[in-house]
């Protein structure tokens, strides 16, 4: 860990907020993608259609 001195709170807060927001965005993107893909599979199976990938 580098010596951040009196600015440690500012630097670590910046990195913490950024990583949390990016992780949230990526997580939400994949969670929603999975949910929608499953829903499409279900409705296509019901209607007897092929998947678009």
């Amino acid at each position, binding site marked *: 860990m580098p*010596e951040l001195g*009196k600015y440690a709170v500012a*630097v670590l807060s*910046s990195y913490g907020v950024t990583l949390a927001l*990016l992780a949230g965005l990526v997580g939400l993107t994949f969670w929603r993608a999975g949910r*929608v893909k499953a829903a499409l599979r279900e409705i296509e199976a019901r*209607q007897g*259609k092929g998947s*678009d990938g």
Partner: protein
Amino acid sequence: MSLWEYANPRKFMETSALVLPWLWALALVCLLGGLAWGFFFTPDDYKQGSTVKIIYIHVPAAMMAINAWVMMLIASLIWLVRRHHVSALAARAAAPVGMTFTLIALATGAFWGQPMWGTWWEWDPRLTSFLILFLFYLGYVALWEAIDNPDTAADLTGVLCLVGSVFAVLSRYAVNFWNQGLHQGASLSLDKRENVSDVYWFPLLICIAGFVLLFVALVLQRTRTEIRLRRIKALEARERLA
């Protein structure tokens, strides 16, 4: 092969499925590599101390906040002129990503500004135009959610995107237009004398590449989801008619 072929949802799904794993991997490598290099292996600045390490997230996030809006503008124009649904869906997919980058730029700017300027916030031209850009992102996302008809939503959000572009440009050039405020000029410049020192420049470039790749990966992934949602709506409508 024409670029417009990718406006075909099936073609877009096929191509993006091939490209996405590479994009995610490259984005992860660049982000982790650039941030680790910048955070652990660069020296403190003689004036700003260790706060200079915030540059590796603040600058790429701010750049992408503006560039995301430019991408949305281009996609919206393609929708408004050529009526390609994938472009409208891509603009919709990019908005929450751009909004998050804008929020990161505002938050890290506040964390950086407090020890350097003695204040979390100042009604400085660049900061203010960034805040307005964030509000435009919010409005854009809300407008998409508020309108049921997807074509009407794409039309109205396309117009909103055109109006918001003024603030995207202002966010980038505000420091040049108004020679006032606390925020300094651009950190990156083609003029070597105005650029940041090489010791910060190289890891910063890698971080920028990481943010760009992450943006592209997220937009492609989210556009695929929007295309599937659109197909679900079409199939449900067909079911109701049957």
